[in-house]
């Protein structure tokens, strides 16, 4: 048997016997997280529909100043409530989402055909107040336009004169692309699982093995150091791919059992197979990088201290794209993490991926993996590897 394979089988056997670690890394992450996230998605979905359709309660200051407007609003699914004593404080302490203030001069301005003042009090930094604010704003706009049109007609002018433009929207978002929006976390979760899924095994197999004093006898066998390292990397990759596969299966099952989410995601076996292919380079990159770190670290503790930093890495492209959205370009396919992010989104949105994109993606991904492997192998050949413990 090839020594690489011997090392790989031994590392996996060792890991499989460590039941508790295995359960935590295989079940907690890949199975609990999708369930949790789908649950949260369901809650958010629920809230949005209820905010859109339920009667909206709006405290109004100075309701008596505009009885017609109030009556019209009440006809539009709005429940008018008396205003709190301190409206600013009510918004600030979040006891109210939105408050309408009608100016004392409203009637006067109205009768003089001047723009009559109304004010919407809200906190734009509150996510869940956005829908109520939007609802109220749209209603007020409609009311204003309706009355404006009537006024023009009364003066013998066609209302279209005051509307030189007619703007309409054609939303080209497909149901699949909306999913991308709803599941922005999915690439991050998958990339993180692939990138650090085998972390425990990698750190344990290099830094841990040295700490337990079994690396020196291992290196005294005829097996070449690079082969021993590759066996450990292969074991970690196999484990990483397994936890990825479990995560994907968990997603598929979540969608089978919760189809009422209103989002459509391509979770066919073919899509899952392609997502796995997309993740392979990142699994290799993660394991080789961790091997490189573990081979240079003086202890398991030191190697693990890099983990919090590494967990941030896959988040970077998502954050950068959020702050500075850029169009899909070919160079992105060569940028680690960003490329995986884009590829996964394309796959779940059922978008077409050109063969040049696949080519650049796989070449860049495996190329970086190979480079990190080479760097890790160099560290493995360092004399101090076995003896610093």
């Amino acid at each position, binding site marked *: 048997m090839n020594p690489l394979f011997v090392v790989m089988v031994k590392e996996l*056997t*060792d890991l499989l*016997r460590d039941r508790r670690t295995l359960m935590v890394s295989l079940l907690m992450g890949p199975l609990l997280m999708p369930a949790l996230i789908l649950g949260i998605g369901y809650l958010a979905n629920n809230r949005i529909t209820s905010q859109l359709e339920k009667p909206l309660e709006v405290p109004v200051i100075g309701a008596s100043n505009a009885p017609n407007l109030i009556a019209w609003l009440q006809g539009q699914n709005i429940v008018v409530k008396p205003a709190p004593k301190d409206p600013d404080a009510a918004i600030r302490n979040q006891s109210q989402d939105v408050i309408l203030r009608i100016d004392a001069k409203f009637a006067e301005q109205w009768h003089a055909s001047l723009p009559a003042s109304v004010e919407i009090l809200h906190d734009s930094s509150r996510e869940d107040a956005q829908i109520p604010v939007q609802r109220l704003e749209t209603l007020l706009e409609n009311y204003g336009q309706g009355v404006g049109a009537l006024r023009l007609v009364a003066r013998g002018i066609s209302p279209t004169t005051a509307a030189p433009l007619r703007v309409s929207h054609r939303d080209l978002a497909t149901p699949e692309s909306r999913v991308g929006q709803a599941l922005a976390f999915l690439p991050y979760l998958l990339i993180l699982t692939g990138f650090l899924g085998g972390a425990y095994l990698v750190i344990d197999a290099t830094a841990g093995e040295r700490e*337990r*004093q079994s690396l*020196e006898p291992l290196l005294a066998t005829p*097996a070449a150091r690079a082969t021993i390292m590759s066996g450990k990397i292969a074991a970690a990759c196999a484990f990483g791919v397994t936890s990825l596969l479990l995560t994907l299966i968990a997603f598929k099952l979540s969608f089978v059992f919760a189809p009422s989410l209103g989002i459509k995601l391509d979770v066919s076996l073919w899509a899952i197979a392609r997502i796995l292919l997309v993740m392979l380079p990142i699994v290799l990159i993660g394991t080789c990088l961790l091997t490189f770190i573990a081979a240079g670290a003086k202890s398991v503790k030191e190697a693990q201290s890099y983990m919090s930093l590494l967990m941030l890495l896959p988040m970077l492209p998502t954050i950068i794209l959020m702050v500075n959205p850029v169009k899909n370009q070919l160079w992105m396919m060569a940028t680690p993490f960003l490329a995986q992010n884009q590829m996964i989104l394309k796959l779940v949105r059922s978008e077409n991926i050109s063969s040049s994109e696949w080519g650049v993606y796989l070449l860049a991904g495996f190329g970086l993996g190979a480079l990190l492997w080479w760097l890790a192998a160099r560290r493995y050949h360092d004399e101090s590897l076995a003896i610093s*413990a």
Partner: protein
Amino acid sequence: MIEAIDLHKSFQSKTGLVKAVQGVSFTARDGEITGLLGPNGAGKTTTLRMLYTLMSPDAGSVRIDGFDAVRDAETVRRHLGVLPDARGVYKRLTARENIAYFGRLHGMSEADIARRTNELSAAMGMEDVLDRRAEGFSQGQRTKTAIARALVHDPKNVILDEPTNGLDVMTTRGLREFLHQLRGEGRCVIFSSHIMQEVAALCDRIVVIAQGRVMAAGTPDELRAHTGEANLEDAFVKAIGSEEGLHA
């Protein structure tokens, strides 16, 4: 046969250059037990590490059965059975699996591994723990597993770094018999220790190392004659130039 020729090795540390080994030469012949004797920190472990190719010497060379340890490192490791200073066994594997892992890395067939495992466990009296996981092994059981693992491929040359460290009297006695058996099979055995009595009881030849240098070498009789001391302990003290390490 193991030959060390004028070995030198230094390490960079925070306080400066540490010259661990500065000119160690000796020859260990087949069918003999050669003891490396010296106080703690004398350079024994570093010397042995150069023998089993874990480190390459700054100067000098190592020849194992005629192969150079730097140029033919892999061949050299095939000809060696090594019990290093670090002798961790895999806790979640049984003793038998620990031994088999190394056998496979030596490229042995499963049948050969099974046969050698049985021979070695019989020779060292470890049949009762063979199929137990190494978690919770005593120091002696761990050492036996590590020795069996080191010798699974039936090597001609055997290097043991302080094998009796932490072992009780009975286990040490058993180990001595085992080493005599290895010598009887015509193997070349190198054995390091900081305990003079142990080396005196076991070894055909003694190489006394202190401060990274060979202070004296030869059979126990030669050592006594060389230093002019009738007592081997006095000879040792005279050879290393102090009483340091004698009672460690």
